[in-house]
């Protein structure tokens, strides 16, 4: 019989080893799955890698996926630090994009820097307000934020779809349900071949890391996350901290929406969030809520997304199968946390106590 025993002797080196091993085991398991489908696992893996990093063009593509992932992860990390389970990244991205698009479509005669700045601020406010809603409900009525943030995602998606099919439909699109493309002034310029969203992302990552670690507000967020009672006892205004943190958390997701609308889609569409809000939950969690670790983890996930779509065309592996690969890796990595905390001990079935 197997028995769980809590580990007391875990060193950080050992923990890292377990995590690395878990990825290795995941690759082996997924390899079996690929073999069953009749492909050579090693070939598929190397193709995946090449698909993500094989050329400058592909690296750029991977990074373009990584940028929103990193930024969304950093955004929801702030809420997660507070143990406020914000899984409404999708909705906050879309509402940020909506606010930014409103500026882009209505003030396109403004000079480019001013227009982009206004879009940036609008994106932040849009995402922030959308996250403020569940925070307010939590503070006022102690609602479950997981459910509320999740449901708000779908409201946001449907809202954008409505705009796309109704009031904001581009009259020049010949009846196709599409919002008008942004003018040149509303599109983020490229720096070193990639849209300048990467600079915004790096700056925000640095600011958030510093604020969480060294600022009073960041400290209060951690205290609220660790113990609501302690926070109240020490005179922290818990409600204000929750509202403030969620506004920033959602605001950063809103900036993702602004970047994606401006630089990638160059318009607003309901599919613009592309699941980043959900994938970011995983990357944030795997990074142990550490902003610096979010960057490599997000790039890894972006590579998996990019490589996964590459092997679809290269090996005719259906997309569902590529998703299974991702899921297996996830399952192992998350499952490995169990072995960081516990070890399994074999227990003989006869009662040793009576020996």
């Amino acid at each position: 019989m197997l028995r769980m025993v809590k580990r007391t002797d875990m060193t950080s080196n050992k923990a890292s080893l377990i995590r690395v091993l878990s990825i290795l085991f995941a690759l082996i398991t997924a390899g079996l799955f690929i073999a069953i489908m009749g492909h050579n696992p090693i070939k598929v893996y190397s193709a995946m890698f090449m698909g993500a990093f094989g050329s400058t063009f592909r690296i750029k593509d991977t990074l373009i996926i990584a940028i929103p992932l990193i930024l969304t992860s950093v955004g929801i990390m702030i809420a997660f630090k507070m143990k406020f389970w914000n899984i409404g990244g999708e909705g906050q991205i879309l509402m940020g994009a909506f606010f930014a698009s409103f500026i882009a479509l209505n003030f396109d005669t403004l000079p480019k820097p001013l227009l982009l700045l206004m879009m940036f601020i609008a994106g932040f406010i849009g995402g922030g307000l959308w996250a403020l809603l569940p925070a307010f409900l939590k503070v006022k009525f102690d609602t479950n934020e997981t459910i509320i943030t999740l449901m708000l995602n779908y409201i946001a998606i449907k809202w954008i779809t409505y705009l796309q099919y109704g009031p904001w439909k581009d009259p020049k699109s010949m009846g196709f349900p599409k919002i008008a493309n942004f003018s040149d002034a509303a599109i983020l310029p490229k720096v070193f071949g990639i849209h300048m969203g990467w600079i915004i992302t790096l700056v925000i990552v640095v600011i958030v890391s510093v604020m969480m670690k060294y600022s009073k507000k960041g400290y209060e967020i951690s205290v609220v996350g660790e113990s609501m009672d302690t926070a109240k006892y020490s005179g922290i205004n818990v409600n204000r901290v929750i509202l403030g943190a969620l506004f920033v958390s959602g605001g950063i997701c809103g900036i993702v929406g602004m970047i994606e609308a401006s630089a990638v889609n160059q318009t607003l569409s309901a599919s613009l969030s592309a699941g980043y809000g959900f994938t970011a939950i995983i990357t944030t969690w795997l990074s142990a809520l550490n902003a610096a670790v979010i960057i490599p983890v997000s790039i890894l996930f972006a590579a998996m997304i990019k490589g996964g779509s590459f092997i679809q065309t290269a090996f005719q592996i259906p997309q569902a199968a590529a998703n299974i690969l991702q899921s297996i890796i996830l399952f192992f990595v998350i499952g490995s946390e169990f072995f960081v905390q516990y070890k399994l001990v074999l227990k003989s079935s006869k009662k040793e106590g009576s020996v």
Partner: protein
Amino acid sequence: MQEEVFVQMNDICKTFGSVRANYNINFSVNKGEIHALLGENGAGKSTLMNMLSGIYKPDSGSIFIHGKEVKFNSPKDAINQKIGMIHQHYKLVEVQSAKANIILGQAGSLFVNEKKISSEIKAISTNYGIPIDPDKKVYNMSIGEKQSVEILKVLYQGADILIMDEPTAVLTPQETEKLFKIIRNMAKEGCAVIIITHKLHEVMAISDRVTVLHKGTTVATVKTKASSPKELTDLMVGKSVNLSIQRPQVKRGNAALKVADLMAYDQDKVKVLDGVSFDLFEGEILGVAGVVGSGQKELCEAIAGLYTVESGSIIYNDENILGLSPRAIIKRGITMSFIPEDRLGMGLVASMDMVDNYLLKAHHNQKGVFLKRKPIMTKCEHMIDQLEIKTPGVHHPIKQLSGGNIQKVLIGREIETNPHVLITAYAVRGLDIGASHTIYDLINDQKQKGVAILFIGEDLDVLLELCDRIMVLCDGRITGIVKSDTVTKEDLGLMMAGEAISC
């Protein structure tokens, strides 16, 4: 006459990581004996008893039960060897009856023969003189009754070796007396009883022998009759200590806090504070006595601005502070160090280090956006020196410190803020004598500085020695405010049970 040895533990060693919790400990208990296990926090008492009850496995050494060597893999193995442990915090299912709790976890047939079980329980309870109603629901029981259920539970399991972890911590003096009678009955019936306790007078009153542990090793096993509280303390602390608590005479100042007609209800609309009125003066320690849950927590929280009060007033400096935010109250110089049952729940953040815990209140007064940790670090280091806090460093997570050290950090932090009114609740809960005296000294220092102190306590002896006046709460009502010079422990016990006494 050769005594029958029930428990024999030889050369027990146990290390956790780099901490040597037990080192070559020898310990034995005879049939019919009441054996007290004494030691400071971190001396290794709990570790030793957890090995005896099958929760931990020793690294080396051997355990003999009833003369046979045993190796426990789980608490179940220990129960099979007739060892029962009664924990400090009762592990009962509140909505179930005493009977259901007693048979819980027993191997049995699919159907329960209620009548047979009831008669079995009755038999045990009359045998040991433990009064019980098997069909009473646990949530209707007093603390003492709950403890009886716990005791009956292990006796029903057939235990003849009982380990009791701080059994008197939450009892009134009268309840303690009843418990001692039960313990003596159990010993008379041939059980071996091991009591873990900090209270020396209880050791003297009940035990036959005492084993003293110090820093993970056995210091001595002595016959209680041949020893004295002074000798036991010296053995326990490892040096000579003065047992009496000082009560410096300080001229009483103005009333710092005037509480009048405080009424409060809990979520279920049950009255938790019922017309509480008292004055708290500068330079005095006002003790608050009462059975756990008599309104102490609500009173503290009401003063600190954390509990919503129905009516009444709390006047501080001619201002009613009722309704102010906790932060505003802290700013006015009223500070509270409340130590709840789990110690870490309210005053401190377990996973953070000392500096960050110090910052909990201090950061409100720092200017600017960023935290200033540097000056706090020096303050913390100063605090470590002054209060003799044992920690690897200021950046060590609080949760890894021992209970006593955690409490020192908490009280130290409150005192550092130079409060005008200091509220401490259960400041020495679970602390050993050495650490408790450090805390008493700290509180006395504050008193001499003219601070008004509300001291919520559990140990009546301590309250009588340390406090100038004692206020007794029962079911949220004040049953008396008395001078500690003129009141007896028995009177306090009666007031705690709800009888108003005029002194």
